[in-house]
């Protein structure tokens, strides 16, 4: 059982984006577009996740070289636990504030992708 399953909304968005395609190695620009995060925030999160060994990083061999990211097995477990935890908390929040009923959408739409 991972020790920490609660993250900031931005970190959760990055984890969710990576967990959406667990087998794929993703590029930073793709992740930025999907999560709507600016590079300063996105890469800061990727650095922390990499430090915690939740995300693996590698350089591609071809030209131009690109840096790619993928959840590690422990990262996948943490992402799944965080997702379950947030769903449980969201359900509790909806219960506490039952009217009006809350719609839960995750993650928030990226900027410029229509409403």
């Amino acid at each position, binding site marked *: 059982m991972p020790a920490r399953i*609660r*993250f*900031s*909304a931005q*970190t*959760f*968005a990055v984890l*969710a984006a990576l967990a959406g395609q667990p087998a794929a190695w993703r*590029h*930073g*620009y793709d992740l*930025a577009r999907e999560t709507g995060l*600016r*590079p*300063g*925030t996105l*890469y*800061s999160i*990727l*650095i922390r996740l990499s430090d915690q060994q939740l995300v693996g*990083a590698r*350089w591609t061999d071809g030209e*131009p*070289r*690109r*840096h790619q990211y993928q959840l590690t097995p422990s990262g996948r477990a943490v992402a799944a636990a*965080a997702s379950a*935890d*947030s*769903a449980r*908390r*969201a359900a*509790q*929040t*909806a219960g506490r*504030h039952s009217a*009006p009923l*809350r*719609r*839960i*959408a*995750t*993650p*928030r739409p990226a900027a410029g992708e229509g409403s």
Partner: protein
Amino acid sequence: MTEFLSSALAAILRGAARALPAERRQWAEAIGAEAASAPPGRPQAEWLAGGLWLIAKEANVVRRIGYGIGIVAVGAVVSWVLWLSFRAAPAADVEATTDRARVLVGVSAMLVLPWVGRRRGLFGPVGDSLAARLVRISTLAALCAVGIWLVGLDRRSNVNSVVGSGHFNWLQEAGGLALICAILMFTVLAGPRGVQARWPQADPAMAWMITAMAAMVAFFVAPFQTVAVGYVAAVLAATARRSPVIPAALAAGPLCGLAAGSAIFGITAINMSESTGMFVALIVAPLVTGTLAAPAGAVAAWRAAAIEDPREFRFAQDKQGMLAGLAAGATTGLFLMTIASFPGMLLMITGPVAGLLGGVTGATFAARHPRAPRSGSFQAGVYTSSS
């Protein structure tokens, strides 16, 4: 034009990456490599600017500049205080030696503060929020200013009158210093946490009571020093990373405290008799402090992290309201002391008490009038919307 800007930013990014530790440079290079994927023009320039921001954050550039300025400022202040102490006092001034000894002790304490403030534990390192950093820096700067003001009193005091620190007495100075150090060490090492670690069955309230009694004794021996040490310890503990004070309380408390201080300063600026002045200092000033601390308590209670158990949540709200009120009251006293206003020293003691009462009142109001949930917000990483 934007192409030139992008090229320039890319070059700066490559150069700035050297400011990062070797194991972090690949991340700056990664942003530079990804810039080619961004559409040319403004998006690409924004992407590269984001990379520069990341380098600034990772290399702690802003913090390094801030610390550099801080070290220079502290050095300048210390030099000025020493100069004031050794130059401004006439040779025949009976208080001069006492002031010099106390200034040297104060300077020594200031040299230890950065170490204490950065060491992991009760007093450090400083919390991540901007409020924590601002409160820590401004409070310590204000206390330095008060120290300078007290030393500067020598310029205005009668040469042979013994109204302040008095004739130099080694025994009194050494005893007072030892007492203050003992209380501080007791609070840090043998306070409730230390007692609980060693004697799990012991009542933490007893340890606090002994600390409070020792502080009372120290206060009668060396009032200003005890209050100053208390303020330094409180601000370091409140702004440390492990502090229970939430950033909202750290921001709202001092802001309301400054408002209260300004209001009291305005009131005391009116020409009044001695008895009216005492009435203002003893009754009106604490009332104003408590009243203006109430909004800080309410804001802190509203911003307290939600807890499922209603009783626990109410306790957390009261605690944050109380802490915000304490911060407001302490700020009021310190602000007035810094600008050398009459009730300053008195309010440094009565202000936190009045603020605490005001903060609890504000927290009670906040608990009875909960804020309506926002239409949309991030909660635990999930975006919730009422629409």
